[in-house]
């Protein structure tokens, strides 16, 4: 079973990280899911693949009523982000899935019907969660061609999908980045290969550098906090991406 860690709280406004399942089979990439709660409603960010659903669900349900999940957000179309969609909809068929307009015809292959999906335009959009405004920030081509991150201005938290991801070896899989230089080695290969556009990367760095961010929360690996957030943005800005050896 995964564990939950509340990484931000102000009254009933919370960010809960659902992370690290010691029983997860090794052939599945490890994922972080994040639950934002506000006013009794919840939105799950990149709810995960179908095979990790039991572990995510049980961890989430220990903290929150799953039938009160008003929405899920899919940063992009990959199966590890949202192939569990049909299972979440079993608990709340009225739940909505916010996703780039580009994937609106693709993600329904994971489940849902015409009413389930809310398209996000390329320039981004505000998503309301019981009065809390969350901003879908464009991150196209990082790595998916229709890609968004979620910024919570009130909590100063950024969910950054695959940006900031690291493939951590056993024993170095703490929830937060502790030694940036040591940690970033596990992120470098991932970013060089998965991120396809230097231009898109530069735009993203410029965009998020203007945001007040206390924590940058990727879908894989550890969370950057404090000064490590800007350190990561600077590192990413300098990195040449879209490179494959061979």
């Amino acid at each position: 079973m995964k564990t939950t860690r509340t990484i931000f709280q102000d009254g009933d406004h919370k960010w809960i990280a659902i992370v690290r399942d010691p029983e997860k089979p090794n052939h599945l990439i490890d994922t972080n899911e994040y639950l934002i709660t506000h006013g009794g409603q919840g939105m799950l960010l990149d709810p995960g693949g179908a095979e990790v659903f039991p572990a995510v669900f049980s961890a989430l349900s220990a903290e929150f009523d799953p039938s009160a999940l008003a929405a899920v957000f899919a940063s992009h179309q990959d199966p590890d982000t949202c192939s569990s969609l049909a299972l979440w909809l079993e608990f709340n068929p009225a739940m909505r899935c916010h996703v780039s307009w580009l994937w609106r015809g693709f993600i329904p292959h994971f489940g849902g019907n015409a009413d389930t999906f809310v398209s996000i335009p390329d320039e981004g959009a505000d998503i309301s969660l019981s009065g809390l405004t969350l901003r879908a920030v464009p991150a196209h081509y990082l790595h998916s061609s229709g890609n968004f991150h979620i910024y919570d201005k009130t909590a100063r938290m950024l969910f950054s999908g695959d940006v900031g991801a690291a493939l951590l070896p056993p024993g170095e899989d703490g929830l937060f980045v502790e030694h940036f230089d040591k940690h970033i080695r596990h992120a470098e290969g991932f970013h060089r290969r998965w991120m396809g556009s230097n231009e898109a990367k530069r735009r993203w760095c410029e965009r998020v550098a203007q945001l007040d961010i206390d924590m940058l929360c990727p879908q894989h690996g550890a969370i950057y906090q404090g000064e490590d957030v800007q350190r990561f943005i600077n590192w990413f800005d300098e990195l040449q991406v879209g490179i494959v050896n061979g």
Partner: protein
Amino acid sequence: MTTALVSAARKAPQAGVDLMRIVRINEEIKSVVNVAFKINIMALNAIFLAKRAGTAARGFGVLSNELRVFSQDLRDCMSSLTGLVHACVDDVSRMLQDIRHTRLLRQAVAMSSKPEVAAVLAAREVENERHAQSLSGQRRQLKRALEEAFRMVELGGVLAKSAKIEAAYGQSFAVPLSQVSSEFDGVVEEIRVSLESLRHSAFFATK
């Protein structure tokens, strides 16, 4: 492992095997449909041949007309069988998805302390049962349709054999008429053998 988990574990390979079996049935029916189309052309040729042979092949001509009607009926029958097979493929595929979802929901229930989770699982199982019943109904319908097709083909076999007898009375046309009627007989027998094997497919052994 709980009884429910054991039951789900057994159902998964069964549904997979069912899918393979129904795919084989579909392939066999596709080959029968091709042969049925060939019969239609053969029957047309036989009708023309009987007309050229005149009064000596009147009986053969009547049988050729009947064989043409038979070939059209057979095509209709195969089209309906194809529809039923596709419905079975849909149902088996849905059951495979049900099995996966149910397995994952069961794991979630086992790991969760929330009572409402069990209610969602129960609703999922009711839906699974509805899908299983649908497949069971489709399976029975397909079996009945195959039996009807088999009876029709047996009748076609009788027509082909009668045509062979009538061919002998075709005087100077006896040899070509006999050749045509033998081809009929061969093709109808080919279809009969195919349908016979389909009737006994293990797909129908499952309830």
